[in-house]
């Protein structure tokens, strides 16, 4: 966690291989990112990382179901398996009845729950969550945090959550603070 401008989002971008870093090394599942080609980085994002954005960033032309299904398709999960996973996740986030709706028709809390399901559908080893409650009211924020906690346990996935809100850290096993681009604690 850290204040605005401390470099939290940049760090997430570096971890998922979208932004290059000058010094140091980042390894995911034992793989150092600096040794990976662009294609390998894409594969890494596709197979090993899930991403939750502050402003949801659902694909506006796909339904909730299709949004969740999309990363599994990218990762090459076969159709039946994909259907099972999506239905299970929709049930887990409580949106089974909203599966056919476009993002425009969903509330902020619902969108973020879809985004969370999307981040988990391809069974990544790491989920990067960039201020996932930043655009939500307190109640929806609380629900989303609880889902992150429960789903990460269920799917045995590590979550790297970025926030400037101290209350959000209650679900975290470890809290690291950042200021001006450096880890301070």
């Amino acid at each position: 966690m850290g204040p605005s401008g401390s470099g939290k989002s940049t760090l997430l971008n570096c971890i998922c291989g979208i932004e290059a870093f000058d010094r140091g090394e980042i390894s995911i599942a034992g793989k150092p990112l600096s040794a990976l080609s662009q294609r390998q980085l894409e594969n890494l994002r596709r197979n090993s990382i899930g991403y939750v954005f502050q402003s949801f960033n659902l694909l506006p032309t796909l339904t909730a179901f299709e949004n969740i299904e999309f990363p599994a398709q990218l990762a090459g999960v076969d159709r039946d398996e994909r259907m099972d996973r999506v239905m299970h996740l929709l049930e887990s986030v409580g949106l089974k009845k909203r599966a056919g709706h476009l993002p425009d028709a969903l509330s902020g809390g619902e969108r973020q729950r879809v985004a969370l399901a999307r981040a988990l559908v391809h069974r990544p080893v790491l989920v990067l969550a960039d201020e996932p409650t930043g655009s939500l009211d307190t109640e929806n924020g609380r629900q989303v945090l609880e889902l992150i906690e429960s789903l990460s346990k269920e799917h045995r996935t590590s979550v790297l959550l970025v926030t400037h809100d101290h209350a959000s850290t209650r679900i975290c096993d470890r809290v690291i603070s950042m200021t001006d681009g450096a880890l301070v604690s």
Partner: protein
Amino acid sequence: MVRTTFRHWRASIGQYLLLIAIVAVGVGAFNGIRQASRAASANFGLFNEAVSGRSDFIIESPSQRISEDTLSALGSLASYPDWHLVPVVEGSITALDEKGEPTGQLRLVGLDLLSLANLPYVAKRPIEFAEEESTWHEWLGSEKDVWLGRGTANKLNAKKGQRISILASGRVKEIFVRKILDDRDLSVSDDLVIADISTAQGLLSRKGEINRVEVVLERAELREDTEYLNGIGNRISSLLPEGLSVGPTKNRAVDRAAMTAAFRLNLTVLSLIAVLVGGYLILQALDAAVVRKREETAILRSLGVNGRILFLTGILEAVAIGILGSLAGILVGHFLAFGAVGMFAETVNALYFATSIEAISLTWKDCATGLLLGFLFSLVAGWLPARDAMQTPPAQILSKGDWSPGFLWLRNPRFGLSLIVFGALALLLPTLSIQGGSRMPIGGFLAAGAWILGSALLSGQILVCLAKFCHGFCQSPVSRLATSRLMDGSSRHRLAVAGLVVAVGMVTGMFQMVDSFRSTIQEWFDVRFQAELYVSERGVTGAGSVNGIDPALLDELLLDKSIDYADVMYVCHAKAAQGITLLAGVDFDAWTGFVRQIWLKPPGTIRPSSGAEPALVSEAFARRFDVLEGGTVELDTPKGPKLVSPIGIFSDYGNEFGTAAIAIDSWKEWTGADRPINASLYLADGSELEETKQRLRLSYPGLDVRNARELRDVALGIFEQTFKATSALNAIGLAVAFVGLLLGLFSIFDESASTWSTLRHLGFSPVQFVLSAGFEGAGIAVASLAGGTLSGLAMGWLLIFVVNVQSFGWTLLWKVPLADFLIFGLLMVLVGFLSGCLSAIHWSRRKT
């Protein structure tokens, strides 16, 4: 606001210069075509004007030939001091090269060179016809001496004293270049050959015959005095023998302008399309700019700038592009006119009347029209993007995610459906009469515009339906993403489809028109041209060169033992109340008997009116003079007004003025002429076609002797030439539509920036992005193809059954070229796919 707007110009100067250039090309095309067609058809055939000066009246016969008998009766007119008479004979000759092959058609004008010096114009600036004034008598009465302007001499590479072989009236002859007129003030056209009147008559085998007598007033200062002119006109008229009429020279210009009215109208419509497509590109480019500046606009909204100001700024930007582009377009048009004028003059010469190119002039009216046109089209093109910019929300709302106000009304099918209904109702409108008896199918044009626009607006629905249908079959993330974006049918997707639908509708409509025309002409040829050989004057082409063959020469040819029967045709112009038409003399028994035609109404199915000459008329004639069900048409002839009444109607695709064919004897009696225009030869049994053809060619080098296949090739060659401009226009229309698609896709990707960023985080590779964009482009192309083909079929039907029938008076067989459609469709989808890929690559590079 203005400052922030125009700072973008500085930052992307290349792009804005391109927009200005697009307007310049559009306005330039319009202005250039206007100036070129004016210069090509303004000269209405008075080629002697350069030498003898402007005339005030013309004395002529309806057949435009005055015989020696009639001429002698004009003697009394010559004695009046108020005017000068300038008799003129003119015709076409063809120069031959050293091998005896035709090199170019020239216009031979015969004038009374001795009496020219008395004309007020020549008296002011004498023309030297010889180096030594004392040698003038040497060329008087000569059989061969001619004078060439510098342009003609350069074209023929001729020098003073040179002998040149020519073809005239079907015979090989020779001319002698007495002098080259180098006077810089003398604007002699570059195909003009001047000779003494008797020399020209001899060369054209028209002894004792002239075409017209021009009257030049002595008191040039009274030329604009209507009362004086009326008095002179009445005096001359009272002195004229029967069969001749006098009219102000400017009336001839009006007649000729009337003949080309439809041609010029078509050119204007075509050139307006250039401005229209320019406007479409401006719309797409300004729309792209609005999307690019969206964040800045949103910030301005947050700072309190209201939508109205944003709208006005957008309009100001469009108008600035329009005005700058129009100013450049006026210059571009002037230069374009120099390039196009030759082509137009050729068309006018081939289809309407003899003309030569006048100096291209840029008038204040041209400048004002160009400026107004560029201004109006830019205003309309800027209106939609300006409205879009106006709807931009404040930055706080914009930053919440993807937002696309777009042109929401595009999603409403009511606009499109209303236009389709309006188009159908417009078909009930009667035709509009324009100059010279031509008719403008106003209802057909309105229906075409409304249907094409209506289908463009409805095409968005087709896009959505097709995408929904395909989405179910798509399994890969790339294709699913692409189809889902198309299913959403954003306004920008719809705008891109609409632009392409217009282009595809036009192109497929023209495909049908050209193919139907070609098939109809081929069938017409197969039926109509059953003779073995066809004879006409060699080297002479075009409607303005109706010289005819020397009758003695044709009589000699027809004595050939291989010829069983010759269908000889005589043609001259004739004037009816509704305009100029063609009067033909034919072997009436043969035409109503064994000569085959495509009959709309076979001979005998219409009862002729009593007291009128029975005639077989072309469909164009029947429609133009409203005698489809019978009736009479009064034609002016040298022997006074005569009535013709149709007894049958045949298909003829040779001219749009219509032809009335009467018996040869009547034709000769009415016109006082006896020069045939062509002959179709039926060979006797046992005659060998090729051998006869070669023998006749060798014996009559001044005549063209062709078999049916060669004649068909020549005619189809002219047909293909006529439609070259249409093909070029089709290509331009499509190119513009695809540039529009590219610009549209840039806007679409710009608007979806956050989507692409998300996809990148999800592991979407650049190749997948490019492929997805390619599918999106291909999907737009498929939807456009579906919508465009439907509107194209409607266009084809309209062009063939409404516009052609009402404008030109001929019926075509409707043919849909399925193979062309298929190839075009595949090509279009491929280009759509590549456009998508290209725009995605370009967009990614710009963003990184």
